[in-house]
């Protein structure tokens, strides 16, 4: 081989990385640092903000809004648990008994992604509305009290979040289950393992990377979501995302807003990296991407 391509080969990866890497640095990395700095500034929109290292913004933010922060994490934990319970049997059946129609099932599961996230949530608002297609008939039959409502309750918000993030749970579970050779399960049964033992000691452990990836892909966006809480929820279901949006766009209290956003990010990222470390980022990314 000639010397020229070899010299080019040394430089090539850097040239390839440069534009995309710079874009991510300029519009993701640096903004995050700016957000951290903004959270330590004080001032107002009229007078401008100066860096004063006011750490108390953080303690203020948490004492003011710990209810919403805790509520977000709780909702998200419930949503992740629900999604896991709903998704696992389905992913299992498609992976082991889907036969030649596996990709058709996956396509059906992906269909919601072809409809805008906001419209899907509006659709649920419509389905769950007080006199809508579900509650209306039940009320006219007298099965439910006239004043029974689902909208503006925690149940509606949790239901909407579970719906919206369910495919993110199914897909990684499916990928990890599909990789398991059925011969392994047969081997277990040849060694006199019962069906339940075969599942608990062979399939379940081998599907754990999928469980991890699914939990990650569901928990993080659900905790930071505010679309479901706005459209399906009420005053009692405000999540931390709603607070952050209001502080940034309505109250214009930028230091407080950035402090809240940074706290949320730190909490979630620490969790994510602890998670990824236990497993290796490669595998999580691989399963999530596939």
């Amino acid at each position, binding site marked *: 081989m000639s010397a020229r391509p070899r010299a080019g080969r040394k430089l090539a990866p850097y040239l390839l990385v440069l534009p995309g*890497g710079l*874009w991510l640095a300029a519009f993701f990395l640096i903004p995050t640092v700016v957000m951290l700095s903004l959270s330590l500034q004080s001032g107002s929109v009229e007078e401008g903000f100066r860096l004063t290292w006011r750490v108390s913004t953080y303690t203020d933010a948490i004492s003011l809004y710990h209810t919403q922060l805790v509520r977000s994490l709780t909702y998200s934990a419930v949503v992740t648990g629900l999604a896991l319970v709903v998704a696992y049997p*389905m992913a299992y059946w498609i992976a082991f008994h889907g036969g030649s129609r596996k990709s058709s099932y996956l396509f059906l599961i992906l269909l919601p992604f072809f409809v805008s996230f906001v419209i899907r949530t509006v659709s649920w608002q419509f389905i769950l509305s007080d006199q809508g297609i579900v509650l209306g008939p039940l009320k006219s039959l007298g099965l439910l009290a006239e004043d029974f409502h689902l909208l503006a309750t925690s149940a509606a918000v949790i239901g909407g979040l579970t719906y919206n993030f369910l495919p993110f749970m199914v897909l990684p579970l499916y990928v990890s289950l599909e990789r398991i050779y059925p011969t392994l399960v047969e081997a277990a049964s040849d060694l006199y393992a019962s069906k339940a033992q075969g599942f608990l000691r062979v399939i379940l452990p081998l599907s754990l990377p999928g469980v991890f990836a699914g939990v990650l892909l569901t928990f993080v966006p659900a905790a930071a979501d505010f*679309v479901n809480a706005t459209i399906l929820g009420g005053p009692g279901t405000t999540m931390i995302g709603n607070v952050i949006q209001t502080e940034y766009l309505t109250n214009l209290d930028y230091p407080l807003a950035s402090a809240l956003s940074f706290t949320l990010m730190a909490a979630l990222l620490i969790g994510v990296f602890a998670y990824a470390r236990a497993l290796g980022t490669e595998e999580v990314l691989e399963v999530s991407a596939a």
Partner: protein
Amino acid sequence: MTVLEEAARREAPPQTPRRTRRWTGWVLPVYTWLVIIYLVLPIMVMIAFGFNDTKSRLNLTWQGLTFHWYRDVFSNAALSAAFRNTLLIAVLTTAVATVLGTMLGLALGRYRFRGQGGVDLLIFAAISAPELVLGTALLSMFITLRVPRGFLTILVAHIMFCVSFVAVTVRARMAGFDVSLEEAAQDLGADPWTTFRKVTLPLIFPGIMAGALLAFALSIDDYIITSFVNGQTETFPIWVFGATRQGVPPQVNVMGTLLFLTGVGLAVANVVALRRRKL
């Protein structure tokens, strides 16, 4: 296990269920279909109520079948402008993010270089950070630098969050990449650019297409990040979100349906094209 054995395993007919599995035989398929119906239900509702003959802006109860809203789909000027913005931003985002993301994916999948771990980590962080954080961080920077927010800031943001997804998709395609193919081309006298065009590109093309489709879908759909950087400019999801207070007009259902059909059509076309290539 060899490739052939692997193929045989996949081709093999499913094992006949044993006698003992009386109930498991139908419980799981029925369950799967119920979940699929649950997933598809809101889409059906959206499509159906695009045909609802409602008189007012409130589109909540069934009033009878009409095609009126398909004729008048662009009768609401603000909604139409928002829809146009969304399509334009999605097309531009897809073009830029696909190029940048493919380059990143190629570098990560094809080469070993210093700083690779750092780039990996950056992409991993950008994908796993919640959208809320991406949006607020960008907004913080735009506020600090006094950048006016509008069409361009939305575009910049969309390219940012799409690049990493394209990169991961292309890199996944590089996983089974055989470097000797490139070397063979160069041994036969192809220059690096020709090698890339004639050997590398066709091999990773399905990955690039998948990444581009993903970028397009992500951009069209985005509400959260856009809501922080849009200023006065409206996109389709932003307009719909704003309309939820007063009631969403049927034109939104029509536009949603058209986008849905376009997306499904494109995805099916991509799959069919891939199958053809394999045959």
